[in-house]
C-alpha cells in the first residue's frame, strides 16, 4: 500500500512489477508533502517527508528488509539473540537460566499467533472479543500487535539461538481484547486474571481519559491479590493515558536509539529535533509524559514476532512488554520475592514496582518523560537466583522455595521523629532500597 499526501491524498497498491501510479491533485505551486509505504512484515516501512516527486516521472523507493540490515540486526533471524532494547536493559548480562519460570503473565492485547516458531509454547488464552470469553480464537491475531508484544516478553527459540524474550519460561495467558476492546472488556479480563492468579498483566493499550473509577477499583482489587500491572503510557505525545495513569499501574514511556532503524522510516520521524539526545538515545515525540511515568524502556523500531514473520514496530506498546518481561525475571529470580515478599498481596506488587525503579538508570530527558529512568538488569546478575521450576503461589500462599531471604529487618527514623519498620533489600546499585512493611496503596507504581 502506497500513500501520497499533499492537499489531497492518493493511495494505491503496487502491481506485480512493484509499480503504482498515484494521481494527486495539487494546488498551483503545490508539491507532495508525504510519502508513506506500508510494507507488511519483515520490512521497515517507508516514510518520506517532502519527497522529490515530479509529475509523470517514476519515483523509486525500496523497503529495507529485516534480513539484509546486518548493521542493525546481525544474523537475523537464525542467530539473532537480543534486540537493541533487550541489550540496553542488559538481558544479555544475566544467567541464561534466569528465564522467568514460575511466573504467570497475562498479555491483554490483540491475541497472539502461537503458530509462530517463537511462541509455540503459549498454551492458554481467552478471546475477550466474544461474549463471556467463550469461543472465538485467541491465537488468531488479526492485528499483529499482541503477537509482537508476546515476542518481546516470552519469545522462546526452539534451538536456543534465535531471538529470546525476557521470560521464555514464564507461563503466558493471552487475552484477546482487540479489535473492539473497551473498559468493560478490560475489567472482565482483569477479574479473570485474579481468578487465574496471574502475577503480571501487560497492557499495551489505553484511552485518552484521565481516569476511570470502575476500572480502577477492579485494578485495586487485583493489586491487593498480588497482580501487578505494567502499562504503556500512550503515544499521543501528551498526558499519560488511562489505565497507565492509574496509581495501581506502572506506567512505561518509550525510548528510541538512533541507528537502530534505516533512514526514511516512520521510526526516524519520531526523533524530535528540539529534544536532546543522550548517547544516541532519544525520547520519541510520541511518548506520553507526566508524573505518572514510572520508567522508560525501548519503544522505537523494536523487532519482534509478527503473524507469519517478524516486524519492526514502535510505541509505548513495545516499551511496556520490555518492563513486563523484566518484572517477570525479578519476580522469579530476585531473593526478596522468595522471602518477605513471596506472598501474593499488595506489598509484593509494590515491592516489585519499587525494585524496578531502584534498578533504573536516570537519563536526562526529564522525569515526566522517563520517570526513574531505564531499568537495567546487569547489576543484579549476581543477585538473581535461577529457579527450581515451581508454580506461582496462590492467593495468600507462599512459594515453596527453599532459599532463605537475605533481607534484614530494620527500623528507620521517620521524618517527624517517628519510626517506620521495614526491610532493607540489598541492591547492587544505588545502595539498598527501603520497602516499607505493610505498605499501603498510596503512590502505587508512580514516580514519587
Amino acid at each position, binding site marked *: 500500500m502506497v500513500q501520497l499526501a499533499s492537499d489531497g491524498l492518493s493511495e494505491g497498491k503496487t502491481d506485480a512489477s512493484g509499480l503504482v501510479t498515484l494521481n494527486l491533485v495539487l494546488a498551483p505551486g503545490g508539491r507532495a508533502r508525504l510519502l508513506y509505504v506500508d510494507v507488511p512484515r519483515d520490512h521497515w516501512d517507508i516514510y518520506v517527508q517532502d519527497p522529490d516527486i515530479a509529475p509523470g516521472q517514476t519515483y523509486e523507493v525500496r523497503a529495507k528488509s529485516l534480513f539484509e540490515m546486518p548493521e542493525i540486526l546481525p544474523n537475523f533471524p537464525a542467530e539473532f539473540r537480543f534486540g537493541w532494547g533487550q541489550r540496553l536493559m542488559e538481558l544479555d548480562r544475566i544467567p541464561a537460566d534466569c528465564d522467568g519460570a514460575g511466573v504467570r503473565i497475562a498479555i491483554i492485547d490483540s491475541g497472539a499467533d502461537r503458530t509462530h516458531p517463537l511462541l509455540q509454547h503459549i498454551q492458554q488464552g481467552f478471546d475477550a472479543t466474544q461474549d463471556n470469553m467463550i469461543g472465538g480464537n485467541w491465537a488468531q491475531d488479526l492485528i499483529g500487535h499482541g503477537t509482537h508484544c508476546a515476542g518481546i516478553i516470552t519469545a522462546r527459540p526452539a534451538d536456543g539461538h534465535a531471538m529470546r524474550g525476557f521470560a521464555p519460561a514464564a507461563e503466558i495467558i493471552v487475552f484477546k481484547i482487540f479489535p473492539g476492546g473497551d473498559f468493560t472488556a478490560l475489567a472482565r479480563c482483569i477479574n479473570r486474571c485474579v481468578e487465574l492468579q496471574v502475577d503480571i498483566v501487560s497492557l499495551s493499550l489505553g*484511552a485518552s481519559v484521565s481516569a476511570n473509577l470502575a476500572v480502577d477499583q477492579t485494578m485495586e482489587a487485583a493489586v491487593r491479590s498480588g497482580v501487578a500491572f505494567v502499562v504503556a503510557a500512550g503515544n499521543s505525545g501528551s498526558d499519560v493515558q488511562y489505565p497507565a495513569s492509574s496509581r495501581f499501574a506502572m506506567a512505561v514511556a518509550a525510548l528510541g536509539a538512533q541507528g537502530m532503524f534505516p533512514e526514511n522510516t516512520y521510526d526516524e520521524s519520531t526523533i524530535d529535533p528540539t529534544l536532546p539526545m543522550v548517547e544516541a538515545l532519544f525520547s520519541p515525540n510520541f511518548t506520553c509524559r507526566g508524573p505518572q511515568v514510572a520508567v522508560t524502556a525501548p519503544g522505537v523500531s523494536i523487532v519482534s514476532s509478527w503473524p507469519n514473520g517478524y516486524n519492526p514496530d514502535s510505541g509505548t506498546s513495545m516499551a511496556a512488554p520490555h518492563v513486563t518481561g523484566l518484572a517477570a525475571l525479578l519476580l522469579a529470580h530476585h531473593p526478596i520475592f522468595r522471602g518477605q515478599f513471596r506472598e501474593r498481596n499488595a506489598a509484593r506488587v509494590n515491592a516489585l514496582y519499587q525494585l524496578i525503579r531502584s534498578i533504573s538508570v536516570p537519563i536526562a530527558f526529564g522525569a515526566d518523560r522517563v520517570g526513574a529512568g531505564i531499568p537495567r538488569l546487569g547489576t543484579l546478575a549476581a543477585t538473581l537466583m535461577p529457579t527450581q521450576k515451581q508454580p506461582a503461589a496462590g492467593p495468600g500462599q507462599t512459594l515453596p522455595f527453599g532459599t532463605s531471604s537475605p533481607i534484614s529487618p530494620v527500623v528507620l527514623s521517620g521524618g517527624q521523629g517517628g519510626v517506620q519498620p521495614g526491610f532493607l533489600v540489598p541492591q547492587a546499585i544505588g545502595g539498598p532500597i527501603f520497602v516499607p512493611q505493610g505498605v499501603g496503596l498510596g503512590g502505587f507504581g508512580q514516580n514519587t
Partner: protein
Amino acid sequence: MGNFLVAAKASDPAERIRVIQQVRALIDQIPGVRLRVQGDALDSAFGNPPQALPIEADEAGLTALQNAVGDLVAIDPDTPLHPSSVGSRRTNRTKQMAQNNTRPVAEKKDPTSTPTASSPAGASSPASGASSLPQAPIPLKAAKRQYLISSIGGSTAAALGLQSLPQVNLRDTIRRLDIDIVGVVPGLLPATLGALGSTSGGFFVTEIEPARAEALRKNVPPNIAIEENHRLGYGDPPMSKVDPRTSLSLAAAGVTQTFPINGPDRRERWHPDRRCYGPTCERWIVGR
C-alpha cells in the same frame, strides 16, 4: 406469575453467599417458583457465585418461599430488564431486537408499578398494557452511550469517608432510575481475591443519553460513580506536526477506515484498523 429478586439480608458477604446458595437449592423444591436465569448467565449477571437470585413465582410459591426462608432474605418485586441485560455484551442480534422493539428501553413502565412478565415479547406486546404504552413506536435514541455505574469502594471510598454500596443495592438503584443495564462486570469474592478485607464491587454497564448521564452524575449519592465507557486503543501514532492548514479529502480526523492490504507475496493481508490521525488527517499509520 410475577418476577422477584431474592437478596440475603446478612451484612457479611460470605454469609450472604451461603444464604443465597441455600435458597437456590430450596427453589427447586417449591412448586410455583423457578429461577429466571440459569448457569453462566446467572453468574455473569449476579456474581459468581450469585449474590442475588432472579425468580419467577406465583402467589402460592412466593408464600411458600417466604415461609421457608423467614427473615434471612428480602424478596422484592423485580422489573423487567432488556433481553441483553443478561450477558456481557450487546450483540448485533440483540441490537436488532432492541431496534425492532416498539417500546424502547428508555420507555419502560413505571418501576413502582406491579411487575409483569419479563419476556421480550411481553414487553413489546401492546396487549400487555396498552394504556401505559406510547401510542406510536419510538425509535431508540441514537445518542445513547455506554456508561459504567459503580459503587465507590476500596481505598477511594476509605479516603473519601464513603460507605460502599452492595452490588444488589446498586442494581436496584439503577433500575429505580430507569436506566438500561446492558451488562454486568461482577465483583470478585474475598475468597478469590485472597487478601483479607479485600472486596471488588464490580459495576454495571448501562446505556444513557449523555445529557441525562450528566444530570444523573450530579444527583446520585456520592458513593455512586457514573463514567463513560471508552474504547481502548492499542497504540496511537504520534501527534501531528504537519501544518494544520493541510487538509486531506479522504476522511475526517479520527475516522477509522478499513482497507485490504497486499503483502509482498501478493496475498491480501488484512489490517482491521487503519486510522487517520492528527487534526487534519495527514498521517496514516497502520497498527501502531
